[in-house]
């Protein structure tokens, strides 16, 4: 008990001082290590002689401390504002440590890990399905939305007609959207010959996927347009004046200058879809949502967490990776004198 408490206390003290962000980062890391150590020591100790069906899960105090330490770490990092490569390195280290921790079995006495152990195959399927839903819908939305954005950028009339429709789609509550998909795709599956054979039906993967794509179109198209229009008017005029064709202007000037905004749109969509894909569990779309809704039905908190925690982690990692990408594609270096 004692070393963990000491580490936690020292971590909090170091983490709460304001002067040195590096020290704050180290403090937060130390605190987290202490916390994990306490949990890993506490669980088996509590289980001694408690019988086969006993479960241990961390209480509110653990989660509070976890949030506090994570916030400290995030704050220290934003103060340090590390470059994109440093951030990528830090992310890799954190992920490696997390993987090591989960592999090592020190946490295997926790109930959430036991839920995992009894559902390994289902968990793997859910992970693949979740990734498929989030990334697949992103790719599809990008394949439709990016060219659509280019056309809208050139044709003001189309832009004025299309954007309100996409905005409207965005305002449909997610449950309602998934609800609409059921009769709609159900009808398509029944009416169109062959549709059922390729998996189009009222429930399952197809309606969930379609709903996510529809949600994604607005951010993708809107950011594509905003990115392309962020070119300074004088630069666009100069490009026209020197005899660039429309394509050359797009490839050489408008796209590179708009890339950070365009990627920011994809980032929004990716993070949004990782979260929304949970709802897909409701209509049999699979993914981590399956565990969440099973857990809700059985009021099994650990099962809910088994679905929720990976979703949060996935969203966080995607956000960080996309931020790094956005920064790397910034067309003008930051260091202006």
């Amino acid at each position: 008990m004692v070393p963990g408490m000491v580490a936690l206390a020292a971590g909090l003290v170091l983490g709460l001082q304001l002067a040195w962000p590096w020290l704050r980062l180290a403090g937060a890391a130390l605190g987290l290590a202490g916390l994990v150590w306490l949990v890993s020591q506490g669980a088996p100790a509590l289980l001694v002689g408690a019988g086969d069906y006993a479960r241990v899960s961390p209480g509110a105090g653990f989660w509070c401390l976890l949030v506090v330490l994570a916030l400290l770490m995030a704050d220290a990092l934003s103060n340090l504002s590390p470059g994109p490569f440093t951030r990528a390195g830090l992310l890799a280290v954190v992920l490696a440590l997390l993987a090591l921790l989960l592999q090592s079995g020190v946490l295997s006495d926790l109930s959430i890990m036991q839920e995992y152990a009894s559902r390994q195959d289902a968990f793997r399927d859910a992970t693949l399905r979740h990734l498929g839903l989030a990334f697949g819908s992103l790719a599809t939305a990008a394949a439709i939305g990016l060219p659509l954005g280019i056309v809208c950028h050139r044709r003001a009339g189309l832009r004025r007609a299309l954007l309100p429709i996409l905005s409207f789609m965005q305002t449909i509550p997610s449950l309602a959207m998934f609800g609409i998909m059921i009769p709609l795709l159900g009808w398509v599956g029944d009416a169109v010959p062959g549709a059922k054979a390729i998996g189009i039906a009222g429930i399952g993967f197809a309606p969930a996927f379609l709903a996510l794509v529809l949600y994604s179109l607005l951010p993708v198209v809107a950011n594509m347009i905003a990115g392309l229009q962020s070119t300074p008017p004088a630069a666009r005029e100069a490009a026209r004046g020197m005899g660039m064709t429309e394509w050359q202007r797009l490839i050489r000037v408008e796209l590179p200058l708009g890339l950070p905004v365009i990627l920011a749109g994809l980032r929004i969509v990716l993070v949004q879809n990782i979260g929304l894909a949970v709802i897909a569990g409701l209509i049999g779309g699979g993914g981590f949502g399956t565990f969440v809704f099973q857990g809700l039905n059985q009021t099994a908190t650990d099962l809910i967490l088994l679905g929720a925690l990976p979703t949060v982690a996935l969203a966080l990692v995607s956000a960080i990776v996309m931020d790094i990408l956005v920064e790397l594609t910034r067309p003008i270096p930051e260091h202006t004198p």
Partner: protein
Amino acid sequence: MIEIEQITKLYDGLPAVDSVSMTVDTATITVIVGTSGSGKTTLLRMINRLVEPSSGEVRINGTPTGTLAKHVLRRRIGYAIQGHGLFPHYTVARNIAAVPELLGWPKEKINARVDELLDLFSMEPEQFRDRYPAELSGGQQQRVGVARALASRPDLLLMDEPFGALDPIIRARAQEDLRRIQQALGSTIMLVTHDMEEAMHLGDRVAVMDEGRLVQHGTPAEIVLRPATDFVAEMVGGVERPLRLLSLIPVSEIVEEGSAEGDALAADTSLRDALSTCLWSGRDAVPVVQDGVPMGRVTLDAIRAQAKGQR
């Protein structure tokens, strides 16, 4: 030769350029002056068809511009946009290289040309080549903008207030540079400004615009001596007209036999500067030399006679 014929641009039924006709000779500089909003930029942009004329025609060496694809036409015409319009994500070198790249020049030729142009505009290539536009002063940005327009050695150059952001010293130097480049290459230049001084100094011909109309088109001396309208007279600057006139004439034109005391002036000094020298040093006559060889002298009386203008 550029022939502009009855060219008009209407915006919402109102003319921004109102049936302008003029002819620009090859290898000359024509300066378009006028107040803000008089249609100078619009006129210039109708030549490379960034603005489509509502009516009228432009011919370059006899070919109507309407018969060429726009991008082909524009690649032949250098265009320095009002307010530089550099690409923020390109370095100085890539900005200058933009048109040669479009034309598919080989890499070595482009690099050599970039350095040559940077040198020409007094910007050390080593120091400036790899900077981004945001890392330049306003005047440097403008010079890069002009260098970019010159890069492919176009026969025709359109420049919209290219020296607007330069301080008087750099501006004078840039004007000299432009003159020199133009004479060396024999390019045809149409340049927009609202600075009459610059127009007088640079222009072989000056075109004065007022509310979309071309009110006078002639040599600087004609504009000063016989302004076609009150507006032109005002542009030339009422009380300054004699001085403007003197600034157009070199001392070599009125040099006479005889000698004078004090420091000598070069033969290509303007009468305005000669007058200034006389007044400042309290002399009635100043010696004139050409390439170090005495030519004679110029007297205050002779200068005064030149300044009289219309009798």
